[in-house]
């Protein structure tokens, strides 16, 4: 199925989808980040377990830095909470009318958890 799309990247970026569009974009970015993170993690674990390679420690050093932890925890939490919204609205399609309210609720749940987690991560990092 050869698809033809006449929307340029510039026009795509200018699209003002507001809240729902933001969650759509962030869902994709966070999803791809998690695939990359988990894929490399499994591969590194396999390499260091089977062949004693130090790829595992190299990748773990990156993964254990606090900047990376904040990034991946944001990706994980956002993907999980936004994913739950998508699941609920898709399985009960009548609720789609309240999509904007659901997105507000989603940020209301995400932000306190995320700030708490960031506080814990930064505090641990500062303590050494």
């Amino acid at each position, binding site marked *: 199925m*050869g698809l033809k799309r006449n929307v340029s990247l510039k026009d795509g970026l200018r699209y003002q989808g507001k809240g729902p569009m933001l969650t759509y974009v962030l869902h994709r970015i966070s999803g791809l980040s998690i*695939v990359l993170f988990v894929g490399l993690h*499994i591969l590194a*674990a396999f390499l260091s377990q089977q062949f004693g390679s130090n790829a595992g420690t190299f990748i773990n050093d990156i993964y254990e830095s606090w900047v990376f932890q904040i990034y991946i925890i944001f990706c994980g939490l956002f993907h*999980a909470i936004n994913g*739950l919204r998508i699941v609920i609205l898709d399985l009960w399609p009548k609720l789609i009318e309240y999509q904007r309210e659901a997105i507000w609720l989603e940020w209301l749940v995400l932000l306190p958890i995320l700030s708490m*987690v960031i506080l814990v991560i930064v505090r641990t990092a500062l303590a050494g």
Partner: protein
Amino acid sequence: MKPRTVSLAKRGFDFETTMWIFTRLSALAMYLFALVAIVGALIMGARTQMNMADLIRWTFMSNPNHVLNTNVADLVPWSTSFWKLTGSAFVFFAATHGLHGLLSVIEDYLTHPGLRRFLRILVILILVAMTAIGIYVLWTS
């Protein structure tokens, strides 16, 4: 506004519809697995050693090799086949969910039919390989 619905007979139930519902249901399944692992970790004494990275290690792969560095007093409760089975199911759901997601993102931006077929085969190969590697690491650690 009343939602317009098309009956299942008219719509058809093809592979992509199956994957659409699979993505939703595997998300719920992963919520369940993470919850079971968190509860298990708390029962096995995680509450005394709260640390974000450690809690994530427990939540997403409750396997003795994975929680080795987290100062757990006793690794024996983590090496039962219950945790290996839930871990394997988690790997399978996560890999399929993630790689199908990757595929749908790719197919939104690439339209050439041959390229799409090639990437589809490539993603299936990566999926099989990563699931096999993940489950192998789980059962041999």
